[in-house]
């Protein structure tokens, strides 16, 4: 079995706690992306799992075996780094073959594995070439092939496509998707690029300040972040946030916000607390015509973003936020134009004063239904 289990894993550098007592299990045969902003501890965590960094305290287990103090070569892992680690002066075939020589397998088996992994990565035509003849993206594929062909139980990737050109990124992402479908290893993949994580991972472990704040499948994490940080970090751009005081209302705790035509009941809320509402820009609806459940606002500015969509900065009674709308919708909403803004209740996330997701429900009053 190749599950990775961490027990209160901690790393301190002088007065900085880079990894803060992480306990988690990464199941066998899954791809988990460690995602977070620079400095969140993801690379340090990966390096401790690889054996390249000594933990300050805590343990690392691979399939039940304690490996915490074993050097990398005794851990039976494959690693792919930010820069392709390949042997110069020899062919691609030989590069992939060398680590296999230490395994007790026949020459035919070696050849079979090399050809199989080369096919998976689109390296068949490069097998005879010497690595310095190849571009960076192809060299990185060779590095991946080397790590995979050995069939280690665990493969670790440290931002492998960060330094690779656009075309190679596409090819490597595609190859990685294929690979993860075929492979049974446990894969950990560090990235600061949320698109990579959303595209490649079975599970994303979102990190902030040395901790794993949430671990979920990509869409689940995107749609239901556990805290304000998750709502903010994921998304281009992330969630809009509004602070609102809860007051006593006829139907229970209530909030009144310029974003809605009438008061909303917050079932599960506490009157007197200041909560945070979050909604993603792509869920805010804009229209030139009045719509039920909406309020009047104004377009401050707009910009063309991915796919010709418009990211509009909208103002409603002093509240400024962003809406991401389809090209046809955004095209007619020029800066200065009046607009009708609707924030559908099903897309609103509620967070407590401490930033954690609330277990609460928004219920519309008459005006919004």
């Amino acid at each position, binding site marked *: 079995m190749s599950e990775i289990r961490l027990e209160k894993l901690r790393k301190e550098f002088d007065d900085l706690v880079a990894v803060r007592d992480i306990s988690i299990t990464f199941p066998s045969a899954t791809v988990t992306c460690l995602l977070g*902003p620079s400095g969140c501890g993801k690379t340090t965590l990966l390096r401790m799992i690889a054996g390249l960094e000594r933990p300050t305290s805590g343990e690392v287990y691979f399939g039940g075996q304690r490996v915490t103090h074993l050097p990398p070569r005794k851990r039976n892992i494959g690693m792919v780094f930010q820069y392709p680690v390949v042997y110069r002066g020899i062919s691609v075939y030989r590069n992939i073959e060398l680590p296999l020589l230490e395994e007790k397998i026949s020459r035919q088996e070696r050849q079979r594995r090399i050809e199989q992994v080369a096919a998976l990565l689109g390296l068949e035509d490069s097998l005879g070439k010497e690595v310095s003849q190849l571009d960076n993206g192809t060299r990185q594929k060779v590095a991946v092939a080397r790590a995979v062909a050995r069939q280690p139980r665990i493969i670790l990737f440290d931002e492998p496509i960060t330094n690779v050109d656009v075309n190679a990124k596409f090819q490597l*992402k*595609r190859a990685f998707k294929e690979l993860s479908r075929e492979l049974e290893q446990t894969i950990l993949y560090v990235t600061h690029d949320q698109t990579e994580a959303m595209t490649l991972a079975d599970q994303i472990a979102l990190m902030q300040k040395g901790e794993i704040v949430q671990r979920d499948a990509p869409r689940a994490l995107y749609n239901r972040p556990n805290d304000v940080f998750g709502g903010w970090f994921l998304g*281009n751009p992330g969630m809009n946030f509004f602070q609102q005081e809860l007051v006593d209302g006829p139907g229970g705790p209530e909030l009144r916000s310029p974003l809605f035509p009438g008061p909303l009941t917050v079932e599960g809320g506490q009157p007197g607390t200041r909560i945070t509402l979050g909604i993603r820009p*792509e869920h805010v609806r804009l229209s030139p015509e009045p719509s039920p459940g909406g309020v009047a606002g104004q377009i401050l500015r707009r*910009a*063309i973003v991915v*796919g*010709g969509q418009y990211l509009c900065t909208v103002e409603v009674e002093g509240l400024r936020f962003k809406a991401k709308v389809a090209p046809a919708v955004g095209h007619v909403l020029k800066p200065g134009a009046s607009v009708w803004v609707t924030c559908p209740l099903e897309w609103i996330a509620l967070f407590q004063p401490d930033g954690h997701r609330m277990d609460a429900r928004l219920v519309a009053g008459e005006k919004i239904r």
Partner: protein
Amino acid sequence: MIAAEFRHISKRYGRLAVLQDVNLSVEAGSFTVLYGPPACGKSVLVRLLTGLEQPDSGQILLRGEEATHLPPGERNIGYVPQSFALYPHYNVFDNIAYPLRLSRMPKAQVEPIVQRAAAMLKIEPLLTKTPDQLSGGEKQRVAIARGIVKETEIFVLDDPLTGLDFKLREQLIDDLKQMQESLGVTFIYTTSDAIEALMLAENVAILDQGRILESGPLETLYWQPQRAQTLALLGFPQVNFLDGRLEEEAGGLWCQTPLFRFPVQLEGDGQASHPQAVRAAVRPQDLLLDGPNGEGVLTCPAQVLLREDLGGEMIVYLEAQGIPLTTVVRHENAHLVAEDRVTLAVAPESLFLFDQEGARLGRGAPR
């Protein structure tokens, strides 16, 4: 009013022509982006504006006045260079304050200006540190702060956000745009990132190999590009190109591509020789998955190669008869690409037509 102007600017480094007869006017109070692939000449162009380099020929005007050979210190331009060097013996506060003190600003005024710039760049906790204590991204932010504190109305920022953390870039783009708008100052900004250019530019000049291909309001260049290269550079994901042939048939003009054939509407003087080899282009968002059906809509079967999840939308990489294609779907439509085999639909009017040199010939015609 014109804040800055380039007239017939040329520059060579040895035998390499880095700028060739560049003409450009930058309106006062505008956010103007010089955009093009790496090594297109945009950094050299802005360095000429700051006076740190001299053109071989041509004229530079600042605020309507001849400035071609004016020393940098007399140009009164705020400058964030691409490879910045912070003063290693000054702390962050003093690095940012430097240009203000150089212009002999009273001490009481310096402090709030530096604080405001530091707040905007989110480097307040670093004010007492020295450059050797900072990360690459932090140093970059200090350099930006130092460039924007200057009491002037013209700012030049040369690819200031390159390499920064994705989320930080997002925030700084917002802050820079907000700052420019609220102060009404002129920003001349270079980048080779399509997303940055689209987010920031009010006006954009597309540079390629030392020449300006097209320039004007961003909205105009985006929706009505006159050059194939403009269409290729100004958009994300990148536009789809198809090789085609312009032919006449039964009194009308048609474009034949490997994937479909469509009627053509010429523009300009309405003249184009035929048959001729042409390039058709369609933006990813115009390759539809739940396309309109009916007369004139072009369809073709395609195979999904990769789905890239951006959160709110998905970029889908496809292949049709060996030709790579890209489309984008908003996430509520993700179910349309659940299967690997899809049918793409395009309205002919969404197709642009360019000649082999990249000049716009026309568009697809509706039936």
